[in-house]
């Protein structure tokens, strides 16, 4: 029986999972929406992965989780590796593209840039206080224009005269966009303008002060949008590589990290039928009122976190 490795990336918008073998070949993969319920999404994801997975020839010996719900999901799945999404993306991309120098990544709520030299990340930046120019902005604008977010790229490529849209802040961008719609700009041009605005906003914020060197790899959910890819290529003046599995790169990265790590624990698909729930308990130890999250499997407390001092360890 061959060894396999599971990697799961639970983001704010989507939940991604892959199972790889020793040589990083993908044995199973799925991409579903999180819909504000990371536990439910992961159980669904595990069920879908099980359908594709050949249990006769492989067994999963290590599991990694990443993304903003990595800790919660890691607890539920009994992960052997819990890693932040920046490292996971860097490891995933450099494994498949050893020559890469710059990784652009735009997800649902965050965006980051990773600079690579000799196969390791040497500098990175991530948006801090504001989620401007991320997937969430694109999907809300698609809704306004009455199209599916998946169609944005197609529309954008049809435009010959992209509309200028203020890119600094999504609140301003939105009012600018409404104004341009009411002035009678064609829909294609507006959508192309939105794509350009996302690229410009990204380069002016997270990309500020960073030297972008080719080869450039673009990933995250927004990389599926041809319009934004074209906008990056035009602005940067170089080819931008989008991997067909770019949306899975975080999950791939953490599966690779789980493989390289020392932790080994056979994964049990039974979790898809287990009942998990979380409860928030306020600690009354002092006026900081730490919000402690308790995770239960059935009635059994399996983990808790959120306290800033030892006093909180007693609250359950």
């Amino acid at each position, binding site marked *: 029986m061959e060894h396999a490795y599971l990697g799961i990336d639970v983001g704010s918008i989507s939940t991604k999972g892959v199972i790889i073998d020793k040589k990083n070949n993908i044995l199973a993969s799925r991409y579903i929406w999180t819909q504000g319920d990371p536990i439910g999404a992961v159980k669904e994801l595990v069920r879908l992965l099980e359908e594709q997975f050949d249990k006769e020839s492989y067994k999963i010996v290590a599991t990694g989780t990443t993304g*903003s719900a990595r800790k919660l999901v890691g607890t539920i799945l009994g992960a052997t590796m819990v*890693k*932040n*999404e*920046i*490292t996971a993306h*860097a490891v995933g991309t450099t494994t498949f593209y050893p020559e890469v120098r710059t990784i652009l990544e735009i997800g649902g709520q965050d965006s980051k840039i990773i600079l690579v030299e*000799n*196969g*390791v*990340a*040497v*500098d*990175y*930046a*991530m948006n*801090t*206080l504001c989620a401007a120019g991320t997937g969430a902005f694109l999907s809300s604008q698609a809704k306004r224009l009455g199209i599916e977010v998946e169609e944005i790229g197609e529309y954008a490529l049809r435009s010959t005269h992209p509309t200028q849209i203020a890119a600094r802040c999504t609140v301003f961008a939105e009012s600018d966009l409404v104004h341009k719609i009411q002035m009678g700009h064609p829909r294609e041009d507006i959508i192309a303008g939105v794509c350009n605005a996302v690229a410009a906003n990204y380069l002016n914020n997270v990309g500020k*002060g960073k*030297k972008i060197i080719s080869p450039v790899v673009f990933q995250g959910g927004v990389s599926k949008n041809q319009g934004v890819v074209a906008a990056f290529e035009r602005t940067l003046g170089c080819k931008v590589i989008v991997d067909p599995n770019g949306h899975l790169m975080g999950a791939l990265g953490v599966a690779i990290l789980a493989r390289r790590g020392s932790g080994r624990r056979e994964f049990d698909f039974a979790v898809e039928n287990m009942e998990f729930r979380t409860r928030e308990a306020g600690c009354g130890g*002092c*006026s*900081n*009122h730490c919000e402690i999250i308790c995770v239960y499997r059935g009635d059994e407390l399996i983990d808790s976190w959120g306290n800033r001092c030892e006093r909180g360890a007693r609250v359950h």
Partner: protein
Amino acid sequence: MAEAKMRNVSFPRYAEYNCAFKYIVEQALGCKYVMPPVLTKRTMELGTKYSPDFVCTPFKTMLGSMIEALEAGADTLLMTHGLCRLGYYGELLEQILRDLGYQFDFINLSEYDMGKKKEYLRIVKRFNPKANPARFLARFMEGLRMTEYVDEITCEYYKNCGFDATDGQYKQAYQDFLTAMYTAQARADVEAGYRAAKRAMQSVPLDKPQRPLRVGIVGEFYTAMDAFSNLELEQKLADMRVEVHRWMNVTNQFLRYGSGQKNLRVKIQDLCRYDMGPTSTANIWYARECAERGYDGLVHIKSATCTPEIDVMPVLQNISADYKIPVLYLTYDAQTSDVGLMTRLEAFYDMIEMRKKVL
């Protein structure tokens, strides 16, 4: 004139310096000191509620802490002067507190000409008309000595605490030191506490590799130094087995370089020729110093809307490019969740650790 009542003086919580404020107020000025409660979410809620939205976070923290000090029984609040917007904060804090209905006496150092020695005497007399200037000066210097000790021990603590080979003796030694400083009533207590801490910390076995990861901290004066405000960034980094170095503290900024940082500017003349704010020269100098010493990374800390530190960032980007040293830029607002910070710090750690193996 009737016998003046003894004042109950307070100053907002600020890193671990409140022990020195206490010492100076009680021993040098002969007043009572009201220790504000430690900073918590409640402090931030109070401060944020009554502050202008776009003011920097330290203002909100200080306002919240002042309200808690007034609740704890303070009748006199002290506010410092400053070289950025901080210089105007005293006036604004006082007005907000008065509008809320609190009654107190407010001593705002911005109203005095801090360049003149005579003004210091006026301030002392305002706290306590019967204060003896000679005695004040002697005990005040002891308070400053305590500040230097706090900075020295804190610096040593964050450099080594991540490598403690025991189950927390190093941290215990640091906490014992702080307790000694918060309870000191005489010079002998300060000296004894310092010596005990030095001995205790040196006796704890450390498990440190030959070339540990070293990270330098630069940034805005309040947020970079106050552990509550930066969500315990230094402890979090240290716990990942990193040597954490920070030059910026009261000792270096005011006691050693109180009359200007011209000598620091010599080394960074090619980067900047004049002060861009209260801490820019020191931060740029120290960032380059870290880069030249081969540190593995820099963390730049500021609160949102801090203009002087925003001005420092382009210079740090140049240093980062010239010396190939990664810089993590962090902007803090009144948030109290550290989940986002942990993601960034873990990624930063992974990066500098993997990088060290290759370069």
